[in-house]
């Protein structure tokens, strides 16, 4: 490898190396194959499937800030919820139910909120940031509870009526339409996220996460960069929220809850942070397990989830995907 850059061939090799970092691996097709196959194999599980896809988008948005920029938050539901209420209120109060634009509006609301709150909050870090994000999300929830005329308060926002997708695909009980819709949205969000993390911008985020002092030293406008990625992430969370509102045709204060912020964090860390696909694995494993355990023993599903988390932390420290990597590296290292 050391000779690669000799003799003027250096630039080409370097470019190949950089491009290699972004290259697609065959395994990356797996989740999509699974998702498409699930549509045909488990037609009765599409409602759950839709919720999983939405959770993946949400977890993916968190990965952008947590996994790449190192921003730890316990209030990410604020943006999910803002998106959900944005989309829901657009339909319930203004009568606009076109699903794609309404969802985009949810993303817009999430993004704006992310920009404003990020501008203030991202000057802090550590426990302080954790508490600030948490308190902000809860305040938002209290606000939504108080603004009952607009949000429906504790009752939830009823009267959301979503038009057929692209004018022809109705919402159906089996959730076919929304499963497909959510899958397409997820694909687009994923491509965007992948593009972002492999841009020079994304590299600078990794730099900020790894060594913020040095980034100041090379002239990075750190705060601005963090606000930018936070806004992107909040917008993506808002999209997920909008999709959630549409697929349920109902929004309650729950979308803003601490539990939702916590759960998405758990999902992501479970799958593995900073690798995009961690969101896929974490959200799917968590939700399927929750669904199955709840059926086995509705009263005590929590115990199983708790045990899983403890085991993951003790034995699979870098999340499920990270541990898979380690395992592969070890077996390959053994051979070399």
């Amino acid at each position, binding site marked *: 490898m050391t000779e690669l850059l000799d003799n003027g061939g250096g630039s080409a090799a370097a470019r190949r190396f950089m491009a290699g970092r972004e290259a697609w691996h065959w395994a990356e097709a797996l989740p999509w194959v699974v998702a498409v196959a699930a549509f045909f194999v488990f037609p009765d599980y599409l409602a759950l499937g839709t919720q999983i896809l939405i959770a993946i988008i949400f977890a993916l948005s968190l990965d952008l800030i947590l996994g790449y920029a190192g921003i730890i938050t316990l209030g990410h539901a604020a943006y999910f919820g803002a998106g959900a209420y944005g989309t829901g209120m657009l339909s319930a109060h203004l009568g606009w139910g076109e699903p794609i634009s309404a969802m985009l509006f949810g993303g817009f609301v999430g993004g704006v909120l992310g920009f404003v709150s990020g501008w203030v909050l991202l000057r802090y870090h550590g426990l302080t940031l954790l508490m600030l994000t948490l308190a902000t999300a809860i305040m938002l929830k209290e606000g939504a*509870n108080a603004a009952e005329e607009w949000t429906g308060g*504790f009752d939830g926002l009823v009267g959301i009526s979503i038009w057929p997708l692209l004018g022809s695909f109705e919402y159906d009980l089996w*959730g076919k339409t929304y499963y497909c819709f959510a899958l397409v949205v997820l694909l687009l969000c994923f491509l965007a996220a992948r593009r972002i993390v492999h841009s020079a911008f994304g590299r600078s985020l990794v730099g900020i996460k790894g060594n913020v002092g040095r980034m100041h030293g090379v002239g990075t406008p750190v705060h601005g960069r963090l606000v930018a990625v936070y806004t992107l992430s909040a917008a993506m969370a808002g999209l997920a929220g909008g999709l959630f509102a549409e697929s*349920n045709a109902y929004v309650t204060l*729950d979308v803003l809850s601490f539990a939702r912020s916590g759960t998405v964090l758990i999902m992501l860390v479970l799958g593995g942070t900073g690798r995009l696909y961690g969101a896929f694995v974490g959200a799917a494993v968590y939700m399927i397990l929750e669904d199955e355990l709840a059926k086995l023993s509705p009263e005590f599903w929590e115990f199983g989830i708790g045990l899983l988390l403890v085991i993951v932390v003790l034995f699979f420290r870098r999340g499920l995907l990270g541990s898979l990597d380690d395992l592969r590296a070890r077996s390959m290292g053994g051979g070399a």
Partner: protein
Amino acid sequence: MNYRKLFPGIIAMLGLAWSGANAETVKIGVVLPYSGGAAQFGEQIDRGMNLFVSQHKEAFGGHEIELIKRDSKRPGGDIAKNAVQELITREKVDLLTGFVFSPNAMASAPLINQAKVPMVIMNAGTAWIPKLSPYIARVSFTMWHAGYPMGGYASESLGCKTAVVGFTNYPPGKDSRNAFTTGFEKAGGKVLEAIPMGGPRQVPDFTPFFQRVKNAKPDCFYVFVPAGNHAVAVVKTYANLGMRAAGIRLIGPGDITQDTKLQDMPKEAAGMITVHHYSADYKTPVNLAFVKAWKAAYGADTTPDFMGVAGYDGMAAIAHAIKAQNGAVSADGTIKALSGWSYDSPRGKITIDPETRDIIQDSNVHKVVLKDGRMMIEVIGTIPQVKDPCKANGIGKCK
């Protein structure tokens, strides 16, 4: 086991020819909170349902039932709605029941409209819920069954001229506030203030709210809190602040004197007046038998409360509907069977109002008394066969 899954189709075809000679298996989706803070309600209703099934196998007209239970967890709507969607599409249930929290029932209403699956509500008491779908029938109560008569009773019989309302700040709480205020002011009383006392998820420290009431000195203090954990805290705070000595009477719907919570309350609970449709201490033969069976099934230290009874009665209603349709359960058929259905429940006579699909039942005035070291409910008055006053008077969303 597997062959049973293959057969329903064949059996159904045979059923066409044989019409009725066959036993059908009716699938019933049960959506209740089985985890989290509300799991105690799920447990009560679940026990009530099971008790009925074990006692009255014959009531189902020879048909088998299969209960498919799903955890609705929180009152957030989304989880319940997903559970309902899954029960309809994956499990293909014929009928839905359960529903402790109003938002969960509300969120699920559009689905049952679309799928035409009937829903028998066993708790969720926000008055206007049956307006959301023609396939909803309710065997529990509305907030107005207790709050409205309580208002009249407080003014006329307890001699309260002024009252303060303290309520948990969510739809049933506001519903109850409106019910009491309407009843009380119609009878000539004056509500000085209505104080929201935090949300339903967690029991707040009531002291600051009650201090405020103590300093306002009303004759009556009407409190609505969600059934369960809140009630004991309410009475304890009332006792600790010495409000009885200050001449303030604590009244409310039966949620604050829930049977399962009575024994945890301090002695100041004695003398509280509430209006409700059930207590385990009712001395009717039907109820005595019911409580006896309950204790035999679940232990001597357990007590059924109004949720347990709703589970029991709800199952009775479902059994009736199944029998009436001979196992072939449809939404329209179920509602038709339940319209006007009457039952001799542990709480007294109940009827499903054919007009509103809501329940008609007695509202009883309860007084808490201390007997042999046990808190007991004594019935000191009855307002017979109350139709939901919210819909009867066409108030707000009940119009």
